[in-house]
């Protein structure tokens, strides 16, 4: 062993994670409560992993009110993230929310490049329990194009029986096959899986495939 060698981590690397969350009126009651608990769990889990706390970078976008999509928590490292308490009311501007998310992702990448910070492919989680009330097709088209161009990985999640799987599928380059249906209101399991996956991806290295856990704990195959 060579004496007096400093061994510290000088890596500057980020794994961006964007949550696009349906806060329309139909989410009121248990769904929004369980979603909020899931977000708090995500905060806790990511903070407990030394590397993920430094590398995962989170943005939360909520949509509802009068067809409004807005930033609920601006970009921050997981170690600085505090889960928002979201309220449910209003309409479902799914398209506008996704457009905002895609624009935010490219801006954040630009800031990374300017600062010389390396990053992994951003993950975008789109959750919805109902029908969009805005002109969502443009957002869906942008989402598919962005995913095909490898700019982002998109995971549409259908919440409850009322979600429109066909519409959600149009936000994924894999179509309806890309959509996961949340089992009941198992947000807890979903966010535990998401946290575990972020821990893997944030430490992944070139040439190695990230081994992610199965989603069986929280999703059912849409029929």
């Amino acid at each position, binding site marked *: *062993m*060579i*004496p*007096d*060698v*400093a*061994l*510290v*981590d*000088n*890596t*500057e*690397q980020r794994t961006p994670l964007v949550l696009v969350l349906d806060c329309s009126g139909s989410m009121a009651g248990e769904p929004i409560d369980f979603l909020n608990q899931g977000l708090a769990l995500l905060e806790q889990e990511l903070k407990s992993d*030394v590397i993920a706390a430094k590398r995962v970078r989170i943005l939360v976008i909520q949509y509802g009110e009068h067809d409004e999509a807005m930033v609920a928590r601006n970009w921050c490292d997981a170690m600085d993230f505090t889960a928002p308490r979201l309220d449910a009311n209003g309409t479902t501007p799914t398209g506008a929310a996704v457009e905002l998310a895609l624009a935010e992702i490219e801006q954040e990448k630009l800031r990374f490049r300017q600062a*010389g*910070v*390396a*990053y*992994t*492919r951003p993950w975008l989680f789109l959750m919805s329990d109902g029908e969009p009330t805005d002109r969502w097709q443009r957002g869906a088209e942008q989402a598919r194009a962005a995913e095909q161009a*490898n700019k982002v990985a998109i995971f549409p999640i259908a919440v409850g029986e009322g979600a429109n799987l066909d519409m959600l599928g149009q936000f994924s380059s894999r179509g309806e096959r890309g959509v996961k249906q949340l089992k009941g209101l198992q947000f807890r399991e979903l966010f535990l899986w998401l946290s575990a996956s972020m821990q893997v*991806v944030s*430490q*992944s*290295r*070139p*040439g*190695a*495939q*990230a081994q992610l856990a199965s989603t069986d704990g929280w999703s059912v195959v849409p029929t």
Partner: protein
Amino acid sequence: MAAFDQLENRWRVFGASVAGKSHLDKGIPCQDAHAHVKVGASLVAVVCDGAGSARHSELGAQIVATTLAQALADALRQGTSIQNLHDGALALAMAQVRGALEEMADNHGAVLGDYATTVVGAVMGPSVGLFFHLGDGVGVAQLDDGGEVISLPANGEYANETWFLSGERWRDQLRLLPIPRSVRGLVLMSDGCMPFAMSKHNAGLYVPFMSAVQNYLSCMDDIALGEQALAHTLLDPRTHQITGDDKTLLIALRA
């Protein structure tokens, strides 16, 4: 006097490749490799990092490091200059190594991608030299008059993706970087060492790590003992908090 010059230009090269924590835990062998050949006052050195997702990447890394270093040494012996290497001879040598690997893959019922590996290396003559680089890892030339020439990793957009010699577009992805003046040291490393051997943003060698290592090695008369100490340092449990990846460091000091 000529013999004295030769002595003055002798390289002392220390290399170590060790398995990372995630490979140790799973019983997977180290998929990094390094090789070097001295030709007169010149040095050829190569570090390869086999892709974790490829079936035979540890073989790919070993074969490419060894045969490429040998091929470039042969070229130097035949009078090929650094300029010739820059102007096509290096890419030609790499194409031949890649071709031989493809043939071997065929003979073993495998495909070239099963041997996927990155390449970072240098050919250093008495006064000028050249980095060649495909994918990630880093090469640093420590110039005699101070300053560093750094061959940076290329990853495409994302940090967890990179390029390999087995790739279709390897010729486009191959980067050559001239080393314009004589050097006192050359350092090559795989990406597993980068977090602690390079400073933030890969701006330069991380002095609190590298100067301790180089000072120690510069006093070592026995190369084998020096390499052993280097390997132990790379296996230090403190590195497990930083990376789970295989780690290779090759340090060439001009005596």
